[in-house]
């Protein structure tokens, strides 16, 4: 089962390595990771998505995250009311004949063209991950040349 875990940490060098080390030491792959400053510049939020092969091991990882000196709080959003989103930037082929079809599609998903250069357009989209997946499938026929995504970020209600 996929878990979304949010970790509030001290914003200083080495902290990411300490957090990531708890996962890598057990052979756990981090599916996505988003790190950024909070309102207070001396703390950062890390949102980590990880596939738990064994819930007991994940429980242990969470306890050990809490034990790290630089970790302030740990929240597992599984079974917790929350909002989560992901931002993507995608470079797609753009031509005059596809313009209308593309715009209709983007409208449907609340996505925008943020930049256009020659025959490519850069699209931004924000949404829940299953919505993003749908959009990417639909964009496929226009030809997605490159894609970057932030990974999931989440906030408890």
């Amino acid at each position, binding site marked *: 089962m996929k878990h979304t875990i949010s970790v509030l*940490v001290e914003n200083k*060098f*080495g902290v990411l*390595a300490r957090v990531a*080390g708890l996962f890598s030491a057990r052979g756990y792959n981090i599916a996505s990771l988003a790190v950024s400053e909070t309102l207070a510049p001396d703390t950062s939020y890390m949102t980590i998505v990880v596939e738990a092969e064994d819930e007991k091991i994940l*429980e*242990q990882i969470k306890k050990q995250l*809490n034990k790290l*000196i630089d970790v*302030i709080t740990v929240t597992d959003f599984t079974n917790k009311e929350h909002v989560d989103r992901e931002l993507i930037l995608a470079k797609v082929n753009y031509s005059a004949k596809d313009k209308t079809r593309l715009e209709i599609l983007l409208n449907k998903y609340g996505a925008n063209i943020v930049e256009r250069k020659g025959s490519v357009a850069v699209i931004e989209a924000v949404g829940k991950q299953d919505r993003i997946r749908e959009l990417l499938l639909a964009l496929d026929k226009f030809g997605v040349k490159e894609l970057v995504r932030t990974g999931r970020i989440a906030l408890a209600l």
Partner: protein
Amino acid sequence: MIGAQILMESLIREGVTAMFGYPGGQVLPIFDALYDSPIKFILTRHEQGAVHAADGYARATGKVGVCLATSGPGATNLVTGIANAYMDSIPIVAITGQVKSFLIGNDAFQEADVTGITRPITKYNFLVKDVRDLTRVVREAFYIASTGRPGPVVIDIPSDIQQQNTEFVWPEKVAIRSYHPTYFGHPGQIKKAAKLISSSKKPVLYVGGGIISSAAHQALRELAEKIQAPVTWTLMGIGAFPSAHPFALGMLGMHGTAYANHAVTAADLIIAVGARFDDRVTGRTDTFAPTAKIIHIDIDPSSISKNTRVDVPIVGDAKNILGELLEQIKKRPDTSAWLKEVDGLKKKYPLRYKDGDKIKPQYVVEQICEATGGEAIITTEVGQNQMWAAQWYKHSHPRTFISSGGLGTMGFGFPAAMGAKVGCPDKTVIDIAGDGSIQMNIQELATCVCNKINVKIAILNNGYLGMVRQWQELFYKKRYSHVCITSPDFVKLAESYGAVGIKVTKKEDVRPAIEKMLSIENTVIVDFRVEPEENVYPMVPAGEAINKMIEGLA
């Protein structure tokens, strides 16, 4: 003041009086500051000796042990000792020099990413990038190392930082907002535990190193006597409870006493205090204490429910919680039938060995125990020597048994003995060693002789890497693969270092040799030529239930 002087002043303010280490290119400013420092510096012959000595010092005294090494190879030579301290929750501060801060990452001479290497084996580590941070870093390092569940902390200091000038500002207090160890147990949980204890019929106290680091031995004894419960301990818990006490069950687990393992298996309540249900203790976890409810008291929440189910977890300091429990337990459980049953187990499955004309290693340990009245500080190496020391030396006080528990580091015992003797100069300190392990840090003989650190080394010399040989005998059809080990002439070796060597080949010479060893004011090696293929029993095969022991002689 320059960084190096600030470091020295900070160490003095932290109460450091002795430290162990080795110089090198990137710690020259620190060694220059040491030249004027009142801190007693012990120059070891290898950095590994320094870190184990700091560890032994910490275990014997309860203070933070300190070691110092240069960058690169100096620092990497500390790694085993840091991992060792981490596994056994021992407070040490390891200071390493680092290449100049603007060269970090350039593959500079003697550079290694020390904070990266030590990250998973330290409680915390620091890379000092600004000389103005140095006093705060030292304060935090000692605070983190010695509070909560103790552990090693590394301070990595680039040599240019050691030379920079700034004002010495000592922080009034330590404030780390994300680090607040829990010291007092949850009152509701303590009440629950008290109730369980009152209604139990067959309680067993299972205690570990947490009793010793929290100085909870007195409270433990009071609790055991109040609730009339037998007490078993882990390797790390040796000394937490007097061996001679009628409620003492000795050590449990793989090489524990048979009666301790049977008692745990028959118990209806396990009160675990400062112990972590290690695989060497539990054997097969689904058969560990199968009929018992489990109360687990530990300062580290990540130790709870890690390996076994727990019915009543209590996070906090052992001493505080045992004190609370003593007050909360209104009705004492009636354990008279249980104590009788446990006494029956003790009579039915005594700890024993088959004595004979040859020198048995167990006999040597027993004689050392008798000759020292059980009052010496015993350190051990790792393997058979360690288990025989744990089984046959009868300890009565905390901090008198010093052994590498979690990591199982061969070569630990001798430098640890050295550290213990520096911390407790009035005590007799004896390393019970094997002929394999002692050769791993034998160079420290020079340190001992040079500094008049008079430790005693009793080698149980069987010509084998005995514990591995035992496993090969029992589980690999006696195919002895690379376990037969040669040794130098330990008497001549000792003499060449300026120490004293005694060789013992006859049983009747064992006791006189021990008496002689104790009477000589020097470092002494006694080479006991023991029965080569003696095994450690009882033994629970790895992954088996702890009541399924191989008895050897039973």
